[in-house]
């Protein structure tokens, strides 16, 4: 009788074996050991009025059900360089995905659905892309050529994305190193997915065609934190122009990760940079685990020969499947249940790959995407939570004529998809003998990823025969270089020099507030540290607490300080005025003062009240200590004093009064 693998135990042992550590505990030595390497593709929508290749308005979104028409397309793989269809692409094509596009007349036209050729590239988008390229120190091309980059998933109705290189070979400075940039391209954004079920995938075309830039870095990042730092830098740099879109989905990144001996895997559409460290950490270790699985399998399987699986259709009633809801449902839907034998895969299926996930998960995602089998679509002989009874597995082993080192997988689905599913499983097994498959993966907040698509080959770029090259003359480029924002790294250093607390920088850069601070410093008598902290802390607080009045913009803040200065009111008063101003930006400043109950009082009158308050404290104060006395008096005076005189000076006066001539500092 064969020695059964204990999945739970094996999962733990294999995790140990590859030396997985949580990110919290990981050090640079861990990343060096596995050869961590990562690069970025940072996407940023540009703030233009129109889409890139048509005259539809950009940035108008609608709900899933708000559409005027639908149309259907099927994407067909085109022949690759060697005249062969890409294996997986053909497999996906055989399963025939019906792609449905929802069109809303307000924001999409016949260009978007590939029924009209492209119009000339939006000049505004081109200008912004050139400016950002210059900030990235890229070499600007002499002539912009539009290229078609093929996508078969249907996310673009043409089947390709029109994209053009603006600059190549640049660099951005991080705190401790320089990251090289491969290129910056200007491209059209894709559709937003509405659903993906079985053989139907549905998209809406509102976001489609909006101008987007993609900044691609070299894989220069050697640990997860560097990846985030680089990504933040690029995003802040983009935003520093004030000409990019912000908000949900306006900036997204694809993160490329590999470990030594692994393959470049692309984690698509990461919405928040704070997810990056965990994602890249987990992915690098997943690849490391796949290499360990390859080594295990190669001892048992001749990798030179094509790997073959065998399978049998299972009779639902011959097993105890009634107790397993997913299989029961499948049977009720008339689906087939198939048992597959994977020769030599014992101990591999329960091998650790990601926290909480074992190798068998790799099949699940592919069955969903390539064979269109909705999840849950499979289970296996080494499931961490085993649902199929041991006696049933034994029965299947006999049916499949299994050997000791084999593992088994059971999947279910509509009859017409079974062939593709079997091919998919066999292909994935073959790939595991080679190591890490080339693929794109979808990310989850917990840092795990799942198979999304096969990474298309390098030869998916074609010149666009519908557009003509656009020359970029020196004069034109130079005319765009005027009024360029300063470098992020320089701004970072300046804030530090001013003494603005570092924890406010992310907020300041992500909202592109540095220019505001700079204007406050240059145009008012505010101390830089006050201006920086006011923006980085007070404004952030107010933004988080109150709802913004429609007319509010950052210019209101400049005007506010101008008003205070003009009326000889102390800048501290701005802190109290800001919440009102933020909610009611159209209110004039005098009314804001009334609203916060401010009355102009001369500093003499404030100071005159100190002796009276001092006596009052003697009567009511519970702890008769000078320190408490000062605080109490300040408390009584603060609201009235704010704006009328400097609070530090007032506190000094109070202390003097309380302590006689001795100066005391109060909080």
């Amino acid at each position, binding site marked *: 009788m064969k020695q059964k693998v204990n999945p739970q135990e094996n999962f733990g042992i294999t995790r140990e074996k590859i030396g997985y550590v949580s990110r919290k505990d990981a050090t640079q030595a861990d990343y060096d050991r596995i050869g961590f390497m990562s690069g970025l593709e940072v996407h940023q929508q540009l703030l233009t009025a129109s889409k890139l290749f048509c005259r539809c308005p950009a940035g108008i979104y609608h709900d899933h059900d708000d*559409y*005027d*028409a*639908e*149309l*259907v*397309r*099927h*994407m*067909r*793989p*085109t*022949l690759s*360089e060697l*005249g*062969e269809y890409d294996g997986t692409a053909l497999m996906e094509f055989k399963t025939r995905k019906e792609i449905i596009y929802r069109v809303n*007349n307000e924001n999409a036209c*016949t260009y978007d*659905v*590939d*029924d*009209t*050729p492209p119009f000339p590239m939006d000049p505004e988008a081109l200008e912004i892309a050139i400016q950002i390229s210059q900030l990235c120190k*890229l*070499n*600007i*091309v*002499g*002539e*912009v*050529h539009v*290229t078609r980059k*093929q*996508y*078969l998933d249907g996310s673009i*109705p*043409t*089947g*390709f994305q029109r*994209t*053009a*290189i603006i600059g*190549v*070979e640049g660099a951005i400075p991080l705190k401790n190193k320089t990251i090289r940039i*491969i*290129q910056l*391209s200007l491209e059209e954004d894709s559709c937003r997915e509405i659903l993906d079920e079985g053989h139907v995938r549905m998209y809406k075309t509102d976001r489609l065609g909006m101008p987007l830039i993609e900044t*691609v870095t070299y894989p220069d990042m050697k640990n997860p934190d560097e990846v985030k730092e680089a990504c933040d830098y690029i995003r802040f740099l983009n935003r520093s122009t004030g000409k990019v879109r912000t908000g949900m989905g306006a900036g997204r990144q694809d993160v490329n990760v590999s470990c030594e001996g692994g393959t470049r895997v692309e984690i698509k559409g990461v919405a928040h940079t704070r997810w990056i460290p965990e994602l890249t950490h987990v992915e690098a270790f997943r690849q490391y685990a796949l290499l360990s699985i390859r080594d295990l399998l190669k001892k048992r399987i001749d990798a030179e020969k094509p790997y073959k699986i065998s399978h049998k259709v299972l009779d639902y009633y011959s097993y105890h499947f009634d107790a397993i809801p997913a299989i029961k449902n499948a049977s009720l839907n008339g689906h087939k249940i198939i048992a597959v034998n994977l020769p030599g895969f014992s101990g591999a299926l329960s091998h650790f790959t990601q926290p909480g996930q074992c190798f068998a998960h790799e099949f699940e995602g592919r069955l969903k995407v390539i064979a269109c089998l909705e999840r849950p679509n499979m289970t296996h002989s080494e499931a961490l939570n085993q649902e199929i009874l041991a006696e049933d597995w034994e029965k299947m082993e006999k049916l499949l004529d299994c050997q000791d080192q084999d593992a088994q997988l059971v999947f279910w689905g509509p009859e017409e998809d079974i062939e593709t599913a079997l091919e998919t499983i066999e292909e994935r097994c073959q790939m595991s003998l080679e190591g890490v498959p080339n693929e794109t993966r979808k990310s989850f907040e917990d840092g795990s990823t799942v198979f999304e698509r096969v990474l298309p080959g*390098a*030869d*998916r*770029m*074609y*010149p*666009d*025969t519908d557009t003509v*090259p656009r*020359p970029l*003359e*020196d004069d034109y480029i130079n005319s765009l270089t005027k009024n360029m924002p300063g470098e992020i790294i320089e701004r970072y250093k300046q804030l530090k020099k001013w003494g603005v607390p570092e924890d406010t920088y992310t907020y300041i850069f992500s909202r592109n507030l540095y220019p505001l601070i700079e204007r406050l410093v240059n145009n008012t008598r505010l101390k830089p540290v006050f201006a920086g902290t006011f923006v980085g802390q007070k404004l952030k607080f107010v933004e988080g607490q109150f709802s913004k009045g429609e007319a509010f913009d950052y210019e209101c803040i400049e005007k506010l300080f101008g008003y205070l200065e003009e009326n000889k009111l102390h800048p501290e008063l701005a802190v109290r005025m800001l919440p009102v101003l933020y909610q009611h930006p159209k209110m004039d400043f005098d009314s804001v003062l009334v609203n916060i109950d401010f009355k102009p009082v001369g500093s003499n009158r404030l100071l005159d009240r100190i002796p009276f308050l001092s006596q009052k404290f003697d009567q009511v104060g519970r702890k008769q200590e000078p320190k408490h006395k000062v605080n109490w008096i300040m408390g009584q005076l603060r609201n009235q004093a704010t704006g009328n005189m400097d609070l530090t000076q007032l506190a000094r006066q109070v202390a003097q009064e309380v302590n006689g001539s001795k100066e005391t500092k109060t909080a």
Partner: protein
Amino acid sequence: MSNDIFQGYRGRALEQLKKYHVRVWGKAVIETTRGRFEGTVLPRSENDDDKHIVMKIITGYNIGIDTDTITSMKEVGYKKANYAIPEKEFPISDKNPNVKLFGTGGTIASRLDYRTGAVIPAFSPGELYGAVPELADICNIDTEKLFAVFSENMGPKQYIALAKAIGKEIEKGVDGIMIGHGTDTLHHTGAALTFMVQNSPIPIVLVGSQRSSDRPSSDAALNLMHAARAAGHGDIAETMVCMFGPTSDEYGLLHKGTRVRKMHSSYRSTFRTIGDIPLATVNREKVDPIHKKYNPRRKDRNVTIKPFFDDRVTMLYYYPGMKPDTIDLLVDNGYKGIVFVGTGLGHVNKELYPAIERAQKKGVHMYMTLQTIWGYVHMFVYDTGRDMMAKGIIPAGNMLPEVAFVKLGWALGQTHDPEEVKQIMLTPINDDITLREPYNGYLVYQGGIPEVEEFIKKVHK
């Protein structure tokens, strides 16, 4: 030789390449005032300017380098690309009908050369099978390339050659004929073949594509499958145009060659039957006739080929203020037939009358068709119409302008006797003129109207 090495380059760009000894397909490092660029030098399209050099950079994208910025160039490698569509033997099955596919030069199946953007046509059965393997499930295909011209260069010579070739194939016993054709003049050829190939026992299907097959969303493969289905299995033995019904990948329509017109410059569903309903819908599995009457497929081979054409025919699109000398010039240059495309029910201005009279005296055959596209010429309603008829202009019923042009050329290729020409022109051939217009023969929906919006929301346009 230099052409080969510096493909497409001229002027300043060519000078630079020669100066630094860099060839097309050479891997080059170019230093410029904007920085360094590395990649493979590509051929340049001859219509583009001479101030830029095109490169494919390592990431697969193309860029152009401004020659004025170049400070030095160096060729560091060389690899010339060679492309061909792989041929796979087209599987022949006894169960499938035999279909002949004629090529005219339009590319129905093709692949883009990913480096240059050049279109490599797939045409031989093996190439076609490589590109659209599903065809083998529908029919056995044999191919013959008759000419290599763009759609807009198709003309009388080509119509005649095609008609003769079709006649030969019918005699040989094929089950159906497909003609690959650029879409711009698909309907002209459709009309010409209807007149030149009469009483065909088998379907003759013209097919093209609105989006070239090098793009994943192309309509080419599906159009080919639809056409193969109609030619090999369909029961309608007429000259037809087979193109998308809706813009969606759903079904195709079969239109009579005499009643079809390209109605949108770029839509997939651009071909519409005018003044009538289409013959049939077609998908990968079957042809579903819509039109109640059609010429059914026959076993005999009794086809009549009438390969005639006199190209001294022209079409005059009337506009307000047209001067008589436009007609005089045509007559003086020896034109024998004029198809007027008139306004409304078929009108031109009075100023032209003397020129029209002169033309009639010179024996020019004149017919009236309509700018409105839909409807019948009706020259009895206003006096001007009667005047014109008196001056020799013959109303052509609801014949489409392009069809009337082709038919007049074909008629004059047979006779110049005014009565005989008139007889040929006004005797309907496969509904080039219909006796009646059905109520659903004219449907142009107006967007924005609530009920239309409701309809297009539910039904794919």
